[in-house]
């Protein structure tokens, strides 16, 4: 396929879409699938055929519409209305336009798209979610798909692609926020002709599903980002490392790679240029630590998924000892829009040091849960109260947790913090990959810390001593606190172990494992204290009741 063919195919698909009177987009992301989206879509298709409307109405699957707690969701393309928790008979009403009775019946199921949950979003990464059919290449082409790759390989030099990226100010969306442009340049400048692109899709933080939604809803977007990266740094091979639990994502990615190869968008001559790029999927076997880049590399190489000390960093010595560029799914999903609209456009969104948008998976006790994409700099308070609607039963927010097991809790009083890398780190948490768990007054912060420590203990690979043995000890100490059996010396030991893990562990998993505990010590020391005192009082009470 040449870039001209690409334009023609996109135009033809757009014309085909406009030929329909109505297009119904059924969310087929994992959240909606779990509450019957597949059956709903099948039923709706059957109803369309039964009423002989196939020429007028199109029913298609699409990526995550966002409000996962209210699935299955259906979007009506003609007016952008979104309907929630539809039954097949209710969905049938969507096929009766102009029918006032049907419209009235549907009104109760219509989501208020002017609600802050939708209105405050700015969608770049998720712009195709709800519009594009993840299983049809044409659908992606009609949404300007692969036009950025076409522009890169036919109009831009490698240096120009790198310059756009640098100008965009994009930073890694995997958590640490390393400037993506700098990383790409590091790999581009390495000598040698064998280089690799790796997409880290081993999303494992509890409660986080941003990357899964992108992979399931817009798989071509990630492939396009990887191919542009390959062109820019001089790599001809990409690996997509997907966690094995994401069966649907893997299936859609496999389909997308096949389609893209068949159409010459990937393969020996990308868009009829001299650039060759191939993408292969590697499936993780269920180890959280494989999200750490050196462990991920070891896993792709077929070894045991264990990290190794850095330096050397992967841009210098990565997969099979060759220069390797590793970015996560959301980072790659940002590439195509940056090349399409230019780095300056992207840099205009967000804050001074954090550009663009960030996708958060809002979970916990809020009224609305699901995926939101907000510009960097949006106050956490806006996300928690306005967008997610605060605590469901009118209770009070106590704290939010970001960054998963590597992050920390942020108390309610600090919710005016803007979403950016530095603010969150300053507050003792981190951006992380985008999990955001909201907790109410009933939540015990010590218990939250204990839960995350248990997670790290179970996920420690066991290579280095501080993480392997230290997480076991820290978890046991936290259990003692939760059971009200801890003493002063336990608190001192907990702090000492925390310092050891942070400073002496081999990889990020161990180094950040104490973060949830440290944030409790910082913001909720009274909760730990209460348990200490409780212990002393209980001992005193026991002593008082003892017979003399």
């Amino acid at each position, binding site marked *: 396929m040449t870039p001209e063919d690409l334009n023609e195919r996109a135009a033809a698909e757009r014309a085909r879409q406009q030929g329909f009177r109505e297009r119904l987009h059924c969310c087929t992301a994992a959240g909606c699938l779990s509450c019957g989206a597949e059956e709903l879509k099948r039923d709706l298709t059957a109803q369309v055929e039964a009423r002989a409307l196939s020429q007028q109405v199109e029913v298609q699957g699409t990526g995550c519409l966002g409000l996962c707690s209210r699935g299955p969701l259906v979007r009506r393309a003609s007016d952008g209305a979104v309907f929630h928790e539809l039954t097949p008979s209710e969905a049938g009403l969507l096929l009766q336009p102009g029918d006032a009775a049907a419209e009235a019946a549907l009104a109760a199921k219509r989501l208020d798209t002017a609600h802050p949950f939708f209105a405050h979003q700015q969608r770049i990464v998720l712009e195709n979610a709800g519009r594009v059919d993840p299983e049809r290449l044409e659908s992606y082409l009609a949404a300007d798909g692969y036009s950025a790759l076409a522009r890169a390989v036919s109009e831009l030099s490698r240096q120009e692609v790198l310059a756009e990226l640098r100008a965009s100010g994009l930073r890694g969306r995997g958590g640490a926020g390393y400037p993506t442009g700098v990383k790409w340049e590091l790999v581009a400048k390495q000598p040698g002709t064998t280089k690799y692109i790796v997409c880290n899709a081993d999303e494992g933080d509890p409660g986080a599903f941003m990357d899964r939604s992108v992979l399931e809803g817009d798989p071509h977007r990630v492939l396009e980002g990887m191919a542009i990266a390959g062109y820019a740094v001089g790599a001809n091979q990409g690996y997509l490392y997907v966690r094995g639990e994401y069966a649907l994502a893997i299936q859609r990615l496999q389909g997308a790679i096949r389609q893209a190869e068949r159409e010459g968008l990937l393969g020996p001559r990308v868009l009829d240029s001299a650039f060759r790029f191939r993408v292969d999927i590697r499936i993780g076997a269920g180890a959280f630590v494989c999200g750490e880049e050196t462990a991920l590399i070891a896993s792709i190489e077929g070894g045991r998924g264990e990290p190794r000390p850095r330096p050397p960093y992967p841009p210098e010595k990565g997969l099979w000892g060759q220069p390797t560029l590793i970015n996560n799914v959301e980072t790659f999903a940002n590439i195509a829009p940056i090349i399409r609209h230019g780095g300056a456009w992207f840099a205009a969104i967000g804050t001074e040091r954090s550009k663009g948008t960030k996708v958060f998976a809002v979970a916990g006790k809020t009224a609305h849960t699901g995926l939101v994409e907000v510009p960097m700099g949006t106050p956490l308070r806006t996300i928690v109260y306005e967008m997610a609607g605060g605590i469901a039963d009118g209770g009070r927010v106590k704290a939010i947790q970001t960054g998963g097991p590597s992050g920390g809790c942020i108390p309610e009083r600090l919710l005016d913090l803007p979403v950016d890398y530095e603010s969150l780190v300053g507050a003792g948490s981190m951006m992380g990959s985008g999990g955001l768990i909201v907790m109410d007054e009933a939540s015990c912060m010590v218990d939250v810390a204990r839960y995350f420590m248990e997670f790290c203990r179970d996920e420690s690979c*066991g290579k280095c001593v501080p993480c392997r043995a230290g997480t076991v*000890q820290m978890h046991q100490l936290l259990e003692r606190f939760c059971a009200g059996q801890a003493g002063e010396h336990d608190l001192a030991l907990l702090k000492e172990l925390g310092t050891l893990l942070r400073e002496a562990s081999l990889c990020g998993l161990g180094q950040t494992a104490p973060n949830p505990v440290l944030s409790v010590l910082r913001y909720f020391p009274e909760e730990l204290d209460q348990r200490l005192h409780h212990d002393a009082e209980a001992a005193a009470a026991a002593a008082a009741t003892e017979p003399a």
Partner: protein
Amino acid sequence: MSVKTLTINGKTVTGLAGTSLFNTAWEAGIRIPRLCHIGGLSDIGACRLCLVEIEGRPRLHPACMTEVEEGMVVRTESERLHAHRKLIVELLFAEGNHVCAVCVSNGHCELQDLATSLGIDHVRVAYQHPRRPVDASHARFTLDLNRCVFCRRCMRVCDEVEGAHTLDVAGRGAELRLIADLGQSWGTAESCTSCGKCVQVCPTGALFAKGSAVGEMTKNRAFLQYIVTAREKHEWIRK
């Protein structure tokens, strides 16, 4: 090859480019505690005992896997490092079942030596008393996992020097265990050549020759250096 000049503990030392801080310090007579490192095998940076402070770098670096650089200012001893090393060794004692009084390696044990040199007289963290098996199925050697510290020297010598790769680890975290071949008893592992190199490099009494009684198991580390030197100089090739 270029030579780098650096400072370790205030002493000016030189090291060939590409050599590790650990080896450079060793040549200069500076001893850094270690458990997983052993001369002649690849390094993995797992025990974290050789962590050192390098001026201008916020993080601690494993001396065994950090290459010398011109003008580096390195400290191998400090209050912080001492505290970390002590706690790491305490964690190791608590993690397994280390009972010196009944151990074949009593008096010749690197873990014991570390505890002595770091001034450990008691363990502050909770003993885990794990249930770990003893594999005595091999004709000449015994693997007692109760005494294993997972330094993986045995694994590496078996793979890198003997070329058999009989031993490896399975499981993760606290469930980590040393296995032979595909997790079968050592005696049935067909890849094992019974060379005994694993026994010689083991820092504790986890691997020992059958027939040793308490304190009788002394280990010979020199062989490794002979083999590695011979290999580097191609001494087994007829010229």
